[in-house]
């Protein structure tokens, strides 16, 4: 069997701060196959974006621990130095739409040139040719060609987001990380972008890691779901199974907090707030907020395999 497109193993990313080490990503492992979309969901501040940054190696200056393995097509990226990583992985292997997409375009360079830039850098294309390709790609994501000659401030938020998506597509990367690609947009634009992503996924058979705090949104795109809590993955499951019956108490609670349109259901919320990542609670990190807490929970639960690539980090599912 050929190796999965992306395999992350025991990835850790700690930041040193004045108060102590922030364990933003703590021992995370998962796999993404070609053509598959992994939705990474969780509350704000649970380490989703840090995980994305750890994969694509966009680290802030105060990193104290950065270890583990990230295999892309079977090759361990952690062995590459920055220059090799830049040449072989950035945008050719993995590209990314970042959280602050509205501010991700250089304000003084024309959109077309920015979209074309990766081609010139990585594929050795000439400026003209690359620009032509950029126009094509912009059109594919629904931006009229003429906008290639505009500056970012002349585009609306949704358009800028599309332009960035065009930019991520242009080099045909193996994997695209979407870090909350729609959270800065209004609902209609959001729906628009989601449809675009679905279309792209269908047409190009791309792999995505889709990071979001919006469970309803994640169901649009996901094949697999990973739920993150306090820097750890607490549930990793097939999308269909997950949305039907989440296993981890945190996941069930998350699902119950999603509003539905017709039913007049009382929205649930999870009392308390996510734990500090500096000194996470001993044992199960969710235990202090968990309604099913037992004595077992003072011990660290392992990631328990339930078969079919389904994992959960909770003692409730421990059998023997």
């Amino acid at each position, binding site marked *: 069997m050929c190796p999965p497109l992306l395999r992350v193993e025991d990835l850790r990313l700690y930041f040193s701060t004045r108060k102590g080490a922030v364990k933003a990503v703590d021992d995370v492992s998962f796999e993404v196959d070609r053509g598959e979309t992994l939705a990474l969901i969780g509350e704000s501040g649970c380490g989703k974006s840090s995980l994305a940054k750890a994969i*694509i190696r*966009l680290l802030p*200056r105060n990193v104290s621990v950065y270890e583990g393995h990230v295999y892309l097509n079977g090759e361990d990226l952690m062995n590459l130095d920055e220059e090799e990583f*830049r*040449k072989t*992985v*950035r*945008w*050719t292997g993995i*590209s*990314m739409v*970042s959280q*602050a*997409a509205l*501010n*991700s*375009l*250089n*304000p*003084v*360079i024309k959109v077309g040139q920015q979209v074309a*830039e*990766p081609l010139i*850098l*990585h594929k050795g294309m000439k400026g003209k040719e690359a620009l032509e390709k950029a126009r094509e790609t912009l059109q594919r994501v629904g931006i009229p060609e003429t906008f290639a000659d505009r*500056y970012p*401030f002349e585009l609306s938020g949704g358009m800028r987001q599309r332009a*960035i998506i065009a*930019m991520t597509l242009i080099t045909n990367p193996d994997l695209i990380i979407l870090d909350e690609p729609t959270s800065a947009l209004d609902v209609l634009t959001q729906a628009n972008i989601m449809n675009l992503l679905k279309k792209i996924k269908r047409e190009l058979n791309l792999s995505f890691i889709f990071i979001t705090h919006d469970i309803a949104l994640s169901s649009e795109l996901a094949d697999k779901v990973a739920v993150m809590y306090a820097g750890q993955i607490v549930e990793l499951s097939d999308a269909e199974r997950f949305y039907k019956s989440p296993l981890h108490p945190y996941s069930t609670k998350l699902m119950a907090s999603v509003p539905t349109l017709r039913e007049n259901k009382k929205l649930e919320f999870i009392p308390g707030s996510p734990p500090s990542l500096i000194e996470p609670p001993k044992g199960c990190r969710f235990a202090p907020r968990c309604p099913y807490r037992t004595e077992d929970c003072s011990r660290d639960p392992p990631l328990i395999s339930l078969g079919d690539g389904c994992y959960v980090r909770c003692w409730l599912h421990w059998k023997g």
Partner: protein
Amino acid sequence: MEVRNNPAYSHLTSGEMEELIDKLYEQEVKRLGLDKPFLYRSFIYLKNALTLELGRAQYLTSDSGSRNVRNIILERLPATVLLFTTANLIIFVIGLFGGLFLSRRYGSKLDKVIVTLSPLSSIPGWFYGIFLILIFASWFHLLPYGGFVDAPPPKDSLNYALSVMKHMILPVISWLISYSLIEIYVRRTFFLMFSNEDYVEMAKAKGVPPRMIERRYILRPTLPPIITSFALTLISSWMGAIITERVFNWPGIGSLFYMAASIFDSPVIIGEVVIYAYLLGLTVFVLDVIYALIDPRIRVGGA
């Protein structure tokens, strides 16, 4: 005097002469508007100043002997502009590249050293200048103590230029020692701030090489404020380097100001202020044009 010594009036009696003097005096007062209230006179001055008619100096003369304030100032302006444009340009370049260099090495030993030393820039350039003169002029006799050119000035223009350059070395170095550190520090902090922008991170994710990130994603968008600060520093240095020019005996605007202030030649002092105001206005105007050229966000509504 003009009346008493004038042969045309020699037939007048001394009484008539006094009368004539008084009359001429009154006339002159009226002509200059000195009988008008202060506010009114200010507007007369403003009107004249608009055409650079800055009046006559009370005591100082230009090197060519003119009492006209405009001539006095314009004669000395080039020397100042030459010296401090050179110094500031070098400091600017050092600051820009030093800043970029340090922002790349944020938190390193060198970074910490520069940050720690940067308050040294509160010691003005002329202070170092005194020591430089002591060392290089007095001890080693390598460079001149001060002044603009050798005396007598060389005849051909090449040697003249070389002589001027030789005289510029010490003042320029004194400014470099003093102001480079703070300039590097300020630019470094500035670049650090802007290197946290989302589009810089995006560029890094895109695999843009570090040098190119600096050029296209950090330097380029921050050019307008950098150019502004440079232009304003430049203009104020043309007016404000009074003590440096004094120390190096540089025949520029600053030492003129010093002389004018010490003998209370107010027309010259006011004239300098007016020229400064003009330069400032002109600079801001030019900056506006430059902004539109380098920043597309300002070109709104144009073609």
